[in-house]
């Protein structure tokens, strides 16, 4: 990777703040479930529900953040939710990256008819009403698993990456060392993977980071609307949705998941914008 870009990134204050947030959230996703004091789906109706209403933070010992509307430990659900939300976002980003980079590489390198066709297809996907299509697919196919939702989100959001990969491939195609490689008689696949692809890594990293933020948002939106993981799974979006009816009595139920979603999205966005500046990945 370009050392100049890395230096630029290091000096980018916003990106470093973002990186710190991202590291924190990733640690939460990796270790959170082991730190959770209780199983996320276990109900403590006796201790945690008073007159049917959940207790607040620090009211009952052993349950520092209080309970959710069904009498489950809020802290444990938030920690498990971190892993769920991040797993879906990262897996979906990975799927979108693989599709986007492949389409962009082939489109930019092949040119002509293939290129035209691929780019019209990208235009088409970009003009789909994302949320509407996503919830119709989720409901019709009745897919409420982590893998299904990741694939769904990934398949709908690779287009931006395909465009930027194509633009960078077009640039790289005319570089002298690529011409030299062709003159040496190397095969197309080798040129593509060894000489063109490295030019894409930086920009793809930038767009991918921004994409994680969007995936977190998309997954939470699906869960919030009731089209996410099947209960009793705890994702931050579904926790936000479940807390709506009790907002007046227990605002912290809304506050904590909202805070986590925002911090995560903010962190990935800051880091992503820094990466984008550093690697010049603007369209």
């Amino acid at each position, binding site marked *: 990777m370009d050392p100049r870009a890395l230096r630029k990134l290091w000096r980018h204050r916003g990106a470093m703040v973002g990186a710190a947030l991202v590291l924190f959230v990733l640690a939460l996703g990796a270790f959170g479930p082991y730190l959770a004091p209780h199983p996320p789906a276990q109900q403590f109706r006796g201790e945690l529900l008073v007159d049917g209403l959940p207790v607040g933070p620090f009211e009952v010992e052993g349950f520092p953040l209080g309970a959710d509307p069904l009498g489950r430990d809020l802290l444990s659900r938030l920690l498990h939710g971190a892993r769920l939300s991040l797993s879906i976002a990262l897996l979906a980003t990975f799927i979108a990256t693989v599709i986007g980079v492949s389409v962009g590489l082939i489109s930019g390198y092949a040119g002509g008819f293939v290129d035209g066709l691929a780019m*019209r297809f990208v*235009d*088409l996907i970009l*003009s*789909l*009403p*994302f*949320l*509407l*299509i996503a*919830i*119709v*697919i989720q*409901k*019709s*196919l*009745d897919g409420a698993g982590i893998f299904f939702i990741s694939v769904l989100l990934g398949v709908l959001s690779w287009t931006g990456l395909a465009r930027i990969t194509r633009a960078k491939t077009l640039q790289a195609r005319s570089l002298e060392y690529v011409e030299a490689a062709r003159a040496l008689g190397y095969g197309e696949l080798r040129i593509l993977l060894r000489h063109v692809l490295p030019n894409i890594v930086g920009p793809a990293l930038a767009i991918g980071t921004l994409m994680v*933020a969007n995936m977190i*948002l998309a997954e*939470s*939106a699906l869960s*919030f*609307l*009731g*089209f996410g993981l099947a209960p009793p799974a705890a994702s931050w*979006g579904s926790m*936000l*949705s479940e*807390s*709506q009816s009790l*907002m*007046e009595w227990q*605002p912290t139920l*809304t*506050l904590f998941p*909202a805070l986590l*979603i*925002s911090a995560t*999205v*903010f962190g990935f*966005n*800051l880091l992503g914008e820094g990466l984008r500046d550093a690697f010049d990945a603007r369209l």
Partner: protein
Amino acid sequence: MTRYLLRRTAFGFLVVAIVFTTVFVLLNYFGDPAVTTLGPNASPEQILEFKERKGLNEPVAKQLLSYLGVIPCIRKDANAYHPDPEKRGYCGVLQGDFGESYLHHEPVADVIAWRLPRTVLLGVMALIVELFFGIGAGILAALRRGKTEDHLVMFGTYLGVSLPTYVTGPLALLVFCYLLGWFPVGGYGATPLEHIKHGIMPALVLGIAGTATYARVMRGEVIEAMRQDYIRTARAKGLPEHQVVFRHGVRNALLPAATMIGLSLPGLVSGAIITEKIFAWPGLGALTIEAIHSLDSPTVLAVTLLFAVMVQIGNLLADIGVALLDPRIRLES
């Protein structure tokens, strides 16, 4: 230009057709509206009867064509249906018939006609919020570039695009409606004045992301405009600074922002789906969620068609706007 617009329109039609067909096949082929509508306790006979009546036993392609109004009606409860295939009429979109809602048992067209004005009201209010605050903040940031105001606005736009409506919405509801009691808690009210009062909070929430976008674009455009030669000329001929800024700088910067209105339609549409749910606003967004949850396919299909067409028109208007306002841009490529 004309050729470009024709091609663009044709592409728009293609997108609408693909979106519509996809949703149709998903709902009626992969999904099972009969079972979802009648509930888990329905007997096999009831389900069969429902499918017969709605034409859901026919091949999905035939259902699609009948829904569009290209082939004679297959829905037995439609007025146009006749047992004798010879005398059968059409009952599709082309005839203005969107079918009957499985959930509400009334024509989908009526359901939408009741809901659409409410969503339009919310959308227009949100757009006013976006333009007013977005353009204002953008101008402020540009004129105070590098100073505290600029940093504050830019930080605000960062937050604005990072915070989704399902985070800001519940928080706003909590603070301004429950704790402070400034606005009613959700709903729509009975009189026009009440509609607007109920709409202020959802419109502000729905407008946050758009406000941030407009502010960023406006800031860039004003900075760019203030660098131009005609600004120097205006200053040189001794115009007062406020006239230089507003009559020459801001006015030229407004054009690009105006073209973005078309582009903000998709955001308003998908934003409305979530915002309407949070604030119990009886519009199309809330209807969409409810209809998809219960696989009320006639309603979902009509809403999909409406949204898809609206988004395409928005894109087209944005393209035309860009071309008309800036003759340097050629649309041929």
